[in-house]
């Protein structure tokens, strides 16, 4: 890291910090952490290239404090997931947007109810939620706008995957998150929408959010991200951090 880069990094606050984290041995397809240390600063976009057999779902849940590592410490915005202050933990999670690669919806609710649920639960006013959803729907749906709007009235089972994926994006960014956790977020997203989605990532990063982005497929690797893009790798199914940004001097 250059001196300039170091100075810029020092000014920005870390959003997510993993210190010497070792994860429990999960399923064979999962990515493991072995004494892993890495940080995501405000405005960082960290992209992790996945192999076809990788499933980062457990790892992302670990980052969210839904699992306990064998060793080490995970901190979000300076606070860890330890202790029994569950109210604080849920409050912390409300500031994190997540896109799932599978099983992303509560099946007994409509897509619209799913999108509103977390914000209502955290006390956001109904009119504010409607405004936010309207704004992000218009921004992210492109030519699918009417289909996305219609999908809000249906249960997830009856909505096509590309539309559901757009709705996942709306849900993830609606609550002005500090951290975005992406598990293959561009799956099912048609190419004509890529620019709009990338602009959203850059905009949120500019506002101080950071992104941990597990990606597979070459399309995702070649998107023109303007934010500070760092790549982490998964050699031998073990996550390794890299501090050097790809697109910044």
């Amino acid at each position, binding site marked *: 890291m250059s001196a300039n880069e170091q100075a810029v990094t020092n000014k920005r606050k870390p959003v997510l910090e993993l210190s010497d984290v070792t994860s429990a041995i999960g399923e064979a397809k999962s990515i493991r952490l072995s004494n892993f240390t890495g940080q995501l600063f405000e405005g960082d976009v960290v992209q992790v290239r996945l192999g076809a057999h990788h499933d980062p*779902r457990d790892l*992302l*849940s670990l980052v*969210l404090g*839904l699992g306990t590592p064998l060793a080490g410490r995970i901190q979000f915005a300076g606070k860890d997931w330890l202790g029994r202050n*569950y109210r604080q*933990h*849920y*409050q*912390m*999670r*409300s*500031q*994190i947007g*997540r896109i*799932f690669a*599978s*099983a*992303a*919806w*509560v*099946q*007994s609710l409509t897509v619209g109810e799913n999108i509103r*649920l*977390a914000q209502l*639960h*955290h006390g956001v006013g109904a009119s504010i939620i409607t405004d936010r959803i309207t704004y992000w729907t218009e921004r992210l749906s492109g030519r699918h706008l009417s289909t996305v709007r219609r999908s809000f009235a249906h249960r997830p089972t009856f909505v096509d995957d590309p539309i559901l994926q757009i709705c996942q994006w709306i*849900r993830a960014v609606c609550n002005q998150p500090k951290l975005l956790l992406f598990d293959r977020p561009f799956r099912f997203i048609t190419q004509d929408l890529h620019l709009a989605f990338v602009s959203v990532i850059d905009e949120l990063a500019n506002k101080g959010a950071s992104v941990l982005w597990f990606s597979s497929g070459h399309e995702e690797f070649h998107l023109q991200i303007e934010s500070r893009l760092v790549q982490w790798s998964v050699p031998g199914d073990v996550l390794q951090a890299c501090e050097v940004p790809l697109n910044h001097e």
Partner: protein
Amino acid sequence: MRQLLFTSVDSVPTSMRFAATFGVLLIVQAAIWIDTMGMSPEVMAPMLWRSIVREIAPLLACLVVIGRSGVAIGTELATMKSGGEIEVMDSQGIDPMIYLVMPRILSFVFSVFCLAIIIAVTMVITGFMVGWLMDVINTPWHEFFADVSRNMNFEDFVFFASKTLIAGGFAGAICCIEGISVRGAITEVPLVSSRVGIRALTAVFVVSALLSIVFYGKLLVFKIG
């Protein structure tokens, strides 16, 4: 509200059917024994009313709610857990205890309480009607119900409330906890469904028996303390 509708309102016809059958069996049997043993209905009425209000109605309400809703709740939560839906909620900072478990336990308790009232009333009415039609009950209806209402006291309410609320709470909590504690694959869901009913029923019987022991201070005919 959805839970209340499902657990409480939708269970009313089932509860009334069960209560009607039980009422007929109980009151007709009692009337036959009154004649056989030469007892007066005034002696039997409080005994019948108390056994209905203090024991049978709360127990029957618990059986109906567990059978109709408890197993469904356990299965639903187990399916949500194994399908990753609870993880989705957790990830968004939604506490499943507040969003999923508490409303179900509360609706369970409320349903058992309300259904037990409906069951008690239905048992008495249908028992009287059938007994009167079969000519085993010769008391006019207004005297019969006057006898029943005369025999109601505050103690009955304490028994009734505690048996419905506590046993209902236990049963609801067991159904939810069993459902939400599933780990792993969807193949575990049928196992949970069968386990939920048995465990909740066991809890209801045990809690009911313990409360009776506490209230009466007796274990069967043996006085405690």
